[in-house]
Structure formats: C-alpha cells, structure tokens
C-alpha cells in the first residue's frame, strides 16, 4: 500500500506549531491563529506534551504516537474528505465527523495502548501508546 506518498507540508510539525504559539503568546497576540495558544505556550518547555496527528491522504500521520499520561493529542483533518477519530474499543471519546481543517483533541489520562480508526474509511487506523508520566 502506498497511500501516503504525498506528505503533509514539511512546515507543519509539532515543533514549529509550538514555536509559533510561543511567539504569538509572547507577543501578546490573540490566540486565534493557534486556538490553544496559552496552554501550548505554558508547556513549551516540554515539546512532547501537545503532539499533533495530521490526517492526510486518508492516513493518520504519524500512525503510531507515543506520549506520557496527561498529554493532549490533537488531530487535524487536512483532507477534503471528512474523517473521524474513533476509538476501536471505546476506551477514549471518539470525535464527531471532522470536515476539512477541523481539529479534535483528547487528553489521555491513563497509561495504555489506545487504538483508533476512521469510521468512514475503516482502512485508516492509528494508535496512541500512553506511558506513565
């Protein structure tokens, strides 16, 4: 399967998102551009605390994400087709349908392995591995 040949834009990385948010917060801009700028800026010293998963070309990127308990993970749909983040075994709250550029966040409070898929395109699967904080 070669469904992820076209990568998401290189500039769109968690680190850059954090940097932008931190700069925005430092400059006292409104938080509009990065909708959770204050929270992200507050945790800027620990870049791994607000990882992003990009939904692009009918795939979750990265498909495997490892975080510490208490981490908020945010998914953003960059496709023109809607997708969902649906917990395989209902162990975390699933998203509604995400239209283009819609975002969904969830804080994983407990350690464990959380598998999910897209309820519209079930061949799209991903996993979040949460370790003890």
């Amino acid at each position: 399967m070669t469904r992820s040949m076209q990568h998401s834009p290189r500039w769109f990385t968690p680190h850059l998102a954090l940097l932008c948010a931190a700069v925005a917060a430092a400059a006292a801009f409104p938080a509009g551009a990065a909708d959770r700028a204050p929270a992200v800026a507050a945790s800027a010293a620990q870049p791994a605390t607000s990882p992003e998963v990009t939904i692009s070309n009918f795939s979750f990127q990265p498909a495997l994400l490892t975080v510490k308990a208490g981490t908020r993970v945010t998914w953003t749909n960059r496709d023109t087709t809607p997708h969902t983040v649906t917990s395989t075994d209902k162990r975390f709250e699933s998203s509604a349908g995400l239209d283009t550029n819609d975002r969904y966040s969830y804080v994983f409070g407990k350690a464990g392995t959380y598998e999910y898929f897209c309820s519209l395109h079930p061949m799209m699967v991903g996993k979040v591995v949460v370790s003890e904080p």
Partner: protein
Amino acid sequence: MTLDRPDFPAVEQPTPRRKFLKCMTWAGTGVLWVMQGGVLRAQALDARGTDPVPARRGDFSFVQVSDSHIGFHQAPNPDVTATLREAVAKVNALPARADFVVHTGDLTHLAKPDQFDTAAQVMGELATDRVFYVPGEHDVLGDDGKQYFSRFGRGATGQGWYSFDYRGAHFVGLINVLNFKPGGLGVLGREQLEWLEKDLRGRSSSTPIVVLAHMPLWTVYEQWGWGTEDSAQALTYLRRFGSVTVLNGHIHQIQQKVEGNVAFYTARSTAYPIPAAGTVPAPGPDASVVADRLHGLIGVRDVTYRTVDSALAITDATLA
C-alpha cells in the same frame, strides 16, 4: 412486500405519475435502467430529453442516482446542490417518466440536519412516483444512521434493509455501511445475511433480482476499502438466479463486472469524481478537474455512446 403496500420502504413523491418508459439513459446523476425481458439495460438520452437511439420497449424503468454529498463545497465542485438539481432536471425531462428512482447512498457529506433537508428538498423535485434509498457511510456518520433512517428508511426491516417486488422483478436494498471494523471493508453482517437468505428462499430462479447497496459488493480495490468483506456469502444466495444486477455507488465512477449471471455496476456521483483506483495516493475528490470537464465526469451533461455501449455489451454477455 409489493409496491402498493402502505409500508413500502420508499419516500412518496409529491406528484405521482406513472408511465411506461421506452428507453433508458445516463441521466446526469446516474443511469436510467430499463427492465427488458428480465434483464436490465441502459440507453442514452440527450440533454433535451429526445431519444437519440432507437427506442427500446421495456417492462419498466427506473433511474439510479448516487453520491450527492450535499454539504461538500470544495474543488472541483463548490455547488453540489446545483449539480444534483441538474440531474433531477434531466430525469424529469425524460420523454416518459421513470417508474421510480433509487439513490444508492451518500446523500449528504456529513449527515447534518440541514444537509438532509436540502437533499430531501431536491430529491422531492423528482417527477417520479417513489424514491428508494440505501445509505452511504456519510449518511450514518455519528449516529449510526438514526437521522437518516427516520427520514429515508421508512418501512424498512432490521437495521434498515428491505425488499420489494415490482412487475415481476425482486428488488433488495442492503446496508453495508454500518458496524465497520478497523482495517476492514464494508460489511453486511450476519443478521442481514440471514435475512437475505430467507428473503430469497423459495423464489423462482427465473425471477430477475436487482440488489441495491452503497459500497461495491465485489472487491474493486481493497487498499482503498472499495469492497464488502462478507459479500461472497450474499452471492451464494444470489447465484442461482438467472438475472442478478447489483447497483452500487461509493467510488464515484463507472465500474462493471460480470460473474456468471451476476452483473455488478457502480454509478457516477452527482457531486464529484474520484480518480481511478491506485492512480493517486488516496481516494479523495479529484480537485484537478476543471469546471468545464466536471459535468462530463459526474455524468450530468454529456451522454456518451461509448459508456452506454459498454454497459449494454456487458449486460448482454450475462444473457449468453
């Protein structure tokens, strides 16, 4: 279940009229199908509603419409309501009214109430007696189809599947867009398969069977999820019949296949085309289509003999 029963699982049209149809056509949104001697056939009709090829007498005819995705608003089609409306106008321009219309799923893009409202309004403009619906995965998003079934699934059984007889043919509306499993394809499920077996049991093998379902009931391209994982079981119940036609949507392009007496067919979308399997990284809308080509690819404006010839050739092959 017969067409005259009050629990008939169709949405009544505001202005019922009934006439025989002499020909069938690519009608914008999809195809005009004519049942002729127990076999479904297609025939072209131009935009003015005149018949460009010798008329074919049929027992009855119906139109297939698919994948309208009301609520989609991006390239290559920012106004999917307008293209659905164009398709409806083409159906209404037929020289003789289709007996009924079937919509093979993805009426809406995100199953939102206003999207269902718009879809119902435009489909309500169809000049036909009744419209039969089967849901697409976009129609059951978020609520397992609760809204959808309350509006478009009246009279259905089980989780929304149904069957009915019309002028000697037996129609079955199946649902393969619920209870998806991670990594899987479309699924019919045990309960529906058991119902299907019972529904078909005892029927004469000479009964023409028409099956409606959103996702293809054969594996078009597994990597993109274009198939139904337990469709083989359904086919074991269908195979003994002399004429079986399976009408699907989902992949927004024409694909056909014949297996014995079973002819599979997928219709175009009224909203946007999706590239051929495996030609691009993912099965999303083909945003590269420029406006003046869009209508040809969603089948709303241009009717081509090539397409129709192909359909007829393959359908005829089933008879041989």
